[in-house]
């Protein structure tokens, strides 16, 4: 079974530039999460999708971050414009259904973003 695919693996940009990350979840997984992981910390949720609808984006800095999940499958996360403090690993995860009591998340390898 293929896992969660993310690209690119690494990205270096200058502040105020734009960047986009792509995620392809495991086939059949209805729920998709984007997390931000700053060095030394645990993953912090940015946005959660159920199929192609947003369930929770309360922790997404909406003035610069946006995300979409077209057709309920692939998803993209965009930062525009980037700030120095956005340097982090951006992780995508998927699960069968967020409402299951025994929900298990499957993560991609992440995109490491460096903002100079």
């Amino acid at each position, binding site marked *: 079974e293929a896992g*969660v695919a993310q690209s690119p693996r690494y990205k270096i940009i200058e502040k105020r530039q734009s960047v986009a990350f792509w995620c392809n979840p495991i086939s059949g997984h209805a729920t998709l*999460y984007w*997390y931000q992981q700053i060095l*030394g*910390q*645990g*993953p*912090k*949720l940015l946005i*959660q999708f159920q199929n192609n609808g947003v369930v*929770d984006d309360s*922790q997404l800095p909406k003035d610069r971050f946006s995300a979409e999940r077209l057709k309920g499958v692939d998803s993209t996360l965009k930062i525009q414009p980037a700030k120095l403090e956005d340097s982090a690993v951006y*992780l995508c*995860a998927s699960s069968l259904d*967020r409402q299951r*009591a*025994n*929900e*298990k*998340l*499957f*993560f*991609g*390898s*992440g995109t*490491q973003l460096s903002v100079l």
Partner: protein
Amino acid sequence: LAKTTQPISMDSYEGQEVNITCSHNNIATNDYITWYQQFPSQGPRFIIQGYKTKVTNEVASLFIPADRKSSTLSLPRVSLSDTAVYYCLPPGYQKVTFGIGTKLQVIP
């Protein structure tokens, strides 16, 4: 959300059994507790999950006492490749933050 507490770091020698305990409260009767493992430069990986007594799989065991106010992840005979960060996630936590987790360092 239930509040969780787990040690920030632990050291262990190769071949020893390692137990990492996570304290949590306000866990509903049928809520599952899930543990994840994260290696450097990788996303977290599901290890084990349970909601009562003991669960064992090929990687670890999970002990949950009757009061369900804590859970203990047990790693038998650790090796250098078990060096990682381990996260205890009561229900709902994956929807906010994983917390800092426990950094396990296995020593030769």
